[in-house]
């Protein structure tokens, strides 16, 4: 059909606040990730641990009513409803979270550099701040989906299976801990992934770097700790550093002998990593590739 026969209609309306454009960026980012089958597979893996905990809590509650001694035996599985149990659960979700993020990075961020998405975004009525925030929130949403949301579901289940609402009333710090630790992980991991994926766009090198940070560095740290007899080398494990900081959100939990000193250093390392990542990310988000 000739275009002259089709009418072009104008549009008039008030344009919205630019920060609201972060939501379409998050929504589109999540959609691009969730449409891949491999992510559903990894998500299912992540949910497997959750379902196991869910079943144990249910079974324990049922058995405790019938036989309190058997209930105490089930406490050996660390599904005790204490802050430590949720901390351990969220820490254990780390493997799947790492795998999921390693593959998500190239789609959420790297693809924008490879396929012209960055210029597409930045040529609209947003700037670098909105783009970066939108992308970070998309990554954070994936982290929260795997770690915090299941932990909150377990917390709810544990409380609901109690005979009263006392569990919720007596443990507000646990709720704060779950949310705080989850947000800490989401913030740090989204910055780290965003920064790496903006410089390394392709999936395979990205996965290798990611594995280097979360697999190789902890192993290296452990070995160096033995060789040098200096426990500070354990700080090379960022995931462990996050756990130490996350623990503070839960209040008074059992503390290992050398933990306070490590936590002190972790409190410096994690913000430093975040700052470097933020600088790298902002520096990389430009609408122009310089061609010499």
């Amino acid at each position, binding site marked *: 059909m000739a275009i002259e026969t*089709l009418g072009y209609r104008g549009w008039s309306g008030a344009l919205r606040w630019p920060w609201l454009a972060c939501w379409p960026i998050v929504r589109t980012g999540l959609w691009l990730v969730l449409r891949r089958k491999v992510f559903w597979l990894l998500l299912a893996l992540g949910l497997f641990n959750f379902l196991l905990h869910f079943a144990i809590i249910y079974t324990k509650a049922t058995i405790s009513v019938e036989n309190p001694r058997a209930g105490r035996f089930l406490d050996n599985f660390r599904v005790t409803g204490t802050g430590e149990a949720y901390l351990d659960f969220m820490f254990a979700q780390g493997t799947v979270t790492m795998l999921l993020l390693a593959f998500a990075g190239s789609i959420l961020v790297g693809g924008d550099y490879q396929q012209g998405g960055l210029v597409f975004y930045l040529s609209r009525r947003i700037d670098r701040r909105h783009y970066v925030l939108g992308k970070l929130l998309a990554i954070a949403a994936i982290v929260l989906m795997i770690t915090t949301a299941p932990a909150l579901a377990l917390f709810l289940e544990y409380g609901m299976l109690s005979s009263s609402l006392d569990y919720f009333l007596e443990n507000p710090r646990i709720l704060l801990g779950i949310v705080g630790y989850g947000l800490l992980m989401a913030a740090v991991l989204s910055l780290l992934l965003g920064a790496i994926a903006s410089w390394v766009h392709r999936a395979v090198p990205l996965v290798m770097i990611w594995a280097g940070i979360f697999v190789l560095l902890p192993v290296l740290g452990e070995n160096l700790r033995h060789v040098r007899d200096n426990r500070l080398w354990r700080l090379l494990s960022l995931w462990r550093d996050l756990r130490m900081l996350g623990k503070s959100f839960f209040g008074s939990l059992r503390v290992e002998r050398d933990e306070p000193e490590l936590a002190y250093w972790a409190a410096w390392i994690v913000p430093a990593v975040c700052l470097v990542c933020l600088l790298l990310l902002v520096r990389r988000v430009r609408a122009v590739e310089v061609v010499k």
Partner: protein
Amino acid sequence: MGLLALEQVTHFYGQLCALRNVSVEAEPGAIGLVGQNGAGKSTMLKILLGLVRPTQGRGEVLGHDIRRSGLELRGRVGYMPEAEVLLPGLRGVEFVALAGELSGMPRRHALRRAHEVLSYLGLEEARYRQHEEYSVGMKQRAKLAAALVHDPELLLLDEPTAGLDPEGREAMLELLGVLARKHGKSLILSTHLLSDVDRVCESVVIVHRGEIVSVGRIEDLRRHYRGRYRLRWQGAADEFLHDLEAEGVQVQRDGRPDEALAIVPEGWSTRTFFALADNRKIVLCGLEPEHENLEAVYHRVIGSSIRDGH
């Protein structure tokens, strides 16, 4: 209100000078931005869009300062980049609606408008196909739809016909012409295909090595070519041509036996052609002022710029 005004704009990428002392003003309309690859066209577009802050100089587009009002500016300008834009997994209509939302439109409006614009651009049937399944021509149209979705006053088009086959190119140029002429959109068409500019635009800005070497209405630039006539005749014309040269006319034969280009001296009257032809019993069957096409204008302007040492 003028469309744009740049004043002494210079931009460096590190040591590389992409634009040097660019000053230009333009009124609303269709403007061609032509130059070789690497001349600085894309940088100029990105400066006009407020995406790149110039190293020096100042400027306004639609009354908005390009340094300070990038967001407001991009709310009134649509940009179609040269490079492929692909968000794999999105349908055509979702891609265009996302562009609308990022431009500040409410989601419901953006979706409705995406349907309208895609239909207008002839992609009605392909609205629900995955964006990555589109042909090159469809992708170009989808990019144009994304630029048009928020109904901007000005469209910045970076090589809109790149990669298109002849039919696709023809359709794209027709579309741009209609948008400019019938719907009052101002266009800045950046390309190295001069025929595209000749077809769509009224004005042209010629960029060479980061500097503007010529700017103005295409018709005005062509007027520099006054005093050139294409002659056609019947019969043996050697003596006639000799007479013309004796009168100070430069005669250029281009291999055709019955045709020549005549470059006449100042104050020449075209009646003299007929008088001289009549003397030599020649039938002068064609006398047309020579129109320089944009390509010739471009080469002349670039040539003189190089001779001037730019």
